[in-house]
Every structure is written in C-alpha cells, then in structure tokens.
C-alpha cells in the first residue's frame, strides 16, 4: 500500500510538472495582456516600467523557471488584475465551488441510486419506464439553459428561491460556508439542482444497468433461497456488488462537475472558482488561468487516487498490489 501510494504520488508530481509546462507555454505564448492592462495613453516609459514589474520583459523560459521556483514555495504567481497571489484568489473561492459540487453530487446520489434500484427491480412497469425516459431526457438538457429556466420558474415567477449569490455564510477554519445558514441553504438549492441533473441521470442509468446484470447471478438466488428479506438482499448484497462502477463514476463526475460548475456559477452568480476563471479569461489574467488549471489538475489526481484506494475497501478481490 505504501509503495503504491509513493508511486502514485511521484507519478502525479511528474504529470503536474508536465501540465504546468504545457499550460504555461500555451497561455503565455498567445495573447498579449499588456494591451488590456496598460492604459493606451500611458507614456512609453510607464509602459516599460509596468512590463518590467509584471516580469513580462523576460523570455518565456526565464518566466517559466521563475514560475517553477515560486511554485515550489507554494506561490503560483501574482494576478495582473487583482494584484494578489493567484493561489490565494483561487483558494478563497474553492470552498464555494466545492460546496456547490458536493451538494450537487449528494443530490444525484440520494435520488439517483434509489430511483435506479426501483427501475432495475421491475424494469417493465410504468414507473420504471418513466424513470428511464426521464434520465435520457436529462442527458440531453443543456445545463446553462436549465439554469435559466430554474431562475425563471423559481426566482422570477414564484419567489421561492433567490437566484444569485451565496447568501449568509459562516466561517469555519477561515473558510466561508453557506450551507449552515438557512439563507445560505436557500441560495444553494437552485444551483445545486442545476448541476445535479447530469450526474443524476448517469447514476440512475448505471444503477439500473448494474441491477439488471446482477439479479440473475447465483449469489442473489442463493440469498433468496436462504430466506433473507428482500430489503436485506437489496441493501447488503445487491448494492454492495454494484457499488464499484458507481463509485468510479461518482469520482469521475466530481472532477467533471468542478469543470461544469463554471457554467452554473456564471448563471447563478455563485462566487466560486468558475466565475473567477471566466473573468480572468476575459481580462487575460494569465497567472490566475495557469493557477486555476494546475489546481484543477491537482484535484483530479487527488480524486482519482481516493477512488483507487476506495476500491480496495469495497472489493476484497481488488487489493492494491505492491508492484
């Protein structure tokens, strides 16, 4: 286990390094932030001074090495626009994005697995058919449009839920969370439903398919023959067996949702990382774009690692081998 972990961490580190070079070169090679940042009426002298201050007079390689040197100290450059460390800007907004993503994923799991089980156990009745049809429909829904419709229905026509911002927040360990206050929770409802639709459909389909495949297997028949209650068969035997693909998908979806949160955050004015990246893209704030991407890649690798470790707990047949 320890060897596996160290191997994975070294691998991840190399990937992170390669990604940083790739992203840095791509972001820095194209587009000129000077045009955006410097007042066109500024004198030549002032221009040169600003360029020097931002470190833009050095060659790409020099800039990259300075970036790398600072990255080891945990600094990913200064934002051109906000004039603060890019990593601080992102970490400030990370809790909001995580809050949104996790609540969306929770909605998807809490509703998706039972609905999938209901559809899987009796695939031919009307309820199951409508569950499956809805899930296909959810797949095709464009996230951003659903967001608009939600705002239209629940915020404009009927004033049930607020449509923008996070509401009241509570500070825990220096980070602000909104799910602990009633007002914050009300703000969380629409965006998290919006973000939850796609993973919900995915989990329903997956649970359905898993149950269909598992029901005819011998160990279920055996459990029935043993006279176990239906509830026990479903929860302990069936669900445990089909949990592995579901956990994988939930893990992958977590990363996907963090990326897709960009859309939801833009629509609901949710102050997370996604809104920051869109703002930074329009303002050509290179250091923030680079830092955002590296943080995202880091989160992806972390989630993948956690999913891999979870496998070995869920399925004794897959014990992580020490190669």
């Amino acid at each position: 286990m320890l060897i596996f972990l160290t191997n994975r961490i070294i691998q991840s580190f190399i990937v992170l390094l390669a990604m940083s070079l790739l992203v840095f070169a791509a972001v820095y090679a194209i587009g000129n932030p000077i045009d955006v940042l410097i007042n066109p009426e500024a004198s030549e002298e002032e221009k040169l001074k600003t360029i020097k201050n931002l470190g833009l007079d050095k060659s790409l390689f020099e800039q990259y090495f300075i970036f790398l040197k600072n990255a080891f100290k945990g600094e990913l450059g200064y934002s051109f626009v906000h004039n603060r460390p890019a990593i601080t800007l992102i970490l400030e907004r990370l809790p909001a994005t995580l809050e949104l993503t996790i609540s969306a994923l929770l909605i998807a799991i809490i509703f998706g697995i039972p609905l999938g089980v209901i559809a899987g156990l009796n695939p031919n009745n009307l309820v199951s058919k409508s569950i499956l049809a809805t899930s296909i429909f959810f797949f095709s829904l464009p996230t951003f449009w659903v967001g608009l419709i939600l705002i239209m229905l629940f915020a404009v026509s009927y004033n049930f839920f607020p449509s923008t911002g996070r509401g009241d927040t509570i500070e825990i360990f220096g980070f602000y969370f909104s799910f602990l206050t009633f007002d914050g929770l009300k703000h969380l409802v629409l965006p998290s439903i919006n973000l939850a639709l796609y993973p919900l459909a995915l989990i329903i389909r997956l649970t359905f398919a898993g149950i269909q495949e598992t029901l005819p297997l011998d160990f279920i028949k055996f459990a029935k023959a043993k006279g176990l209650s239906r509830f026990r068969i479903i929860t302990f035997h069936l669900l445990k067996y089909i949990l592995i693909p579901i956990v994988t998908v939930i893990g992958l979806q977590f990363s996907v949702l963090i990326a897709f949160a960009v859309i939801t955050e833009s629509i609901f004015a949710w102050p997370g990382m996604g809104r920051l990246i869109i703002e930074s893209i329009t303002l050509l704030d290179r250091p923030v774009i680079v830092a955002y991407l590296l943080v995202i890649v880091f989160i992806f690798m972390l989630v993948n690692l956690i999913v891999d470790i979870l496998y070995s707990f869920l399925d004794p047949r897959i014990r992580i081998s020490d190669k």
Partner: protein
Amino acid sequence: MKFNIINFLKIYSEDKLALFFFINLIIILGLVIFGPLITLQNPYDLSQLNILDSLLPPLSQAYENNYFLLGTDDQGRDLLSAIIYGLRISLYVGSLSVIISLIVGIILGVVSAYFGGFVDNFIMRVADMVLAMPSFLIALVLLSILGRGLENVVFALVMSQWATFARVIRSSALSEKEKDYFYSARCLCLPQSRIIFGHLLPNCLPPIIVLSTINLAFAITLEASLSFLGVGLPITEPSIGLIISNGYEYIIVGKYWMSLYPGLFLLITVVSINIFSDRLRILLNPRLNI
C-alpha cells in the same frame, strides 16, 4: 438479408417514439437547410428590422402586419427567424467538428491498431491524457488562449473529441484485425492502403456511425454552452447559445421568451439526435443482423 434503406426504415419505425423523434430531426434539418427561404426576415439584415417591434411577446403583431410567432428580441428581430439562423450555425459548427474529429480519429486509430508497438503506445497515452480531462474544460482552456472565432471553436471541439474517436476506432480495428478476411487480404499482398480503406474501415463502420451521432449532439451542446459563456462564437456568428445568452438579462424582468424558445429548439434538436443514435446503436448491432 441485404441492407437497403427502405428495409432499414421499416425496422427503424417499429419503435414509435424513435420514429417520432426521427421525423422531428428531419423537420429540423429541413428548417435549417431551407431556412432563408421560409423565415419571415433575414434577422441579421438590419434594413429588415424595425426597432418599434423590439421586445414583443409571442404571437404579437408587427408594426407592418406580420405576426411574430415566438416574439421578438431587443433589436426587433423575429425570434423564430433568429432561432432558425442560429440552428444553422450551431449544426454547421457541430457537424464540421465531428467530421474533422472523425477524420483525425480514423487516421490515428487505424494507424495505432495497424502498426502497434511504440506508435500505438504513444498515440494512446496522449489520448488517455485528453480523455482524463473533461472535454468542456479542454475546450474552455483552448478558447481562452485562442480567443473567440468560428475556426477556434471548431478546433477546440476537435481537440476535446478526437481521443474518443481514436480509442473506439482503434479497439474495433484491433478486433477486426484478428478476423480471417483480414489475414486473407494480407496474404493476397494487397497494398496497405487498400487493406485499410477497402477492408478494415468498412467493417469498423457501425460503432463509428453511432459514435458520430452521439458526438454531434454533444458538440452542439458544448458549443452552445461555450458561446453562452462568451468564449465561443463571436457576435457575428450568432449561434443558438448566443441567442439564449442574449435573452438572459431579460429573464429577470419576465421577458422569458427570448431564452425559453431558443433553448427548447436546442433541446429538441439534441434529444432527437440522441434518440436517433440510441436507435441506431440497437439496430446496427451485428448480432441483430439487419
């Protein structure tokens, strides 16, 4: 039984829901192809617009005797005409990106499967890296670097989709490679290009067709999302995503139609393509043998 189109349509229409959405798809394609002939106005010819008609709700009468079925936008544009023109652009960008990804995927996938070894390893590792990132993020990053523009959007969509094609084509080519007809073709010493294009590829077609249709729906949604965020197509190429985003600010004041209807059209298009591809997937399954 030999494959022919009437026979295929007969079997296809056994599923009534699929048939309904297939007809839908044909109507949409008709609207898109003959768009300029049937719309009320060219929504981007400013001389045909009248500012007095702006922000009219659906089914209201225009300043000059026309009816606006779905209302008008803030420029006095007939929304239905704008939607049809927008769908043209969306479908054009979507299909162009799928065709290019398909070509790239076929070349890389077949090369990978045919030559194996180091080439295969290299291409597939790169494809894995691409597949590990959500395609939305890849497209977003590329567009943030390249800026808005039709070519840039197509490029970004291709970059986020080619890997799926390459993977699927490689795996079906690998399984075809083990079959007898492939060995016979090699024994006949046919030229490599003929083995690949005349024998290998036609047999890989079914999964490729299904994948292309799924990806078309996906590409259209992706482009709409990107354009909605303002990083996709420029204002000079108003796709359906841009039309929806244009109506976004009016939702708060209750002028819902400017975002609702374009989104519905987008949704119907995507659902129709998805159900079409789902039906194709079932029908093209070689075990069913049409």
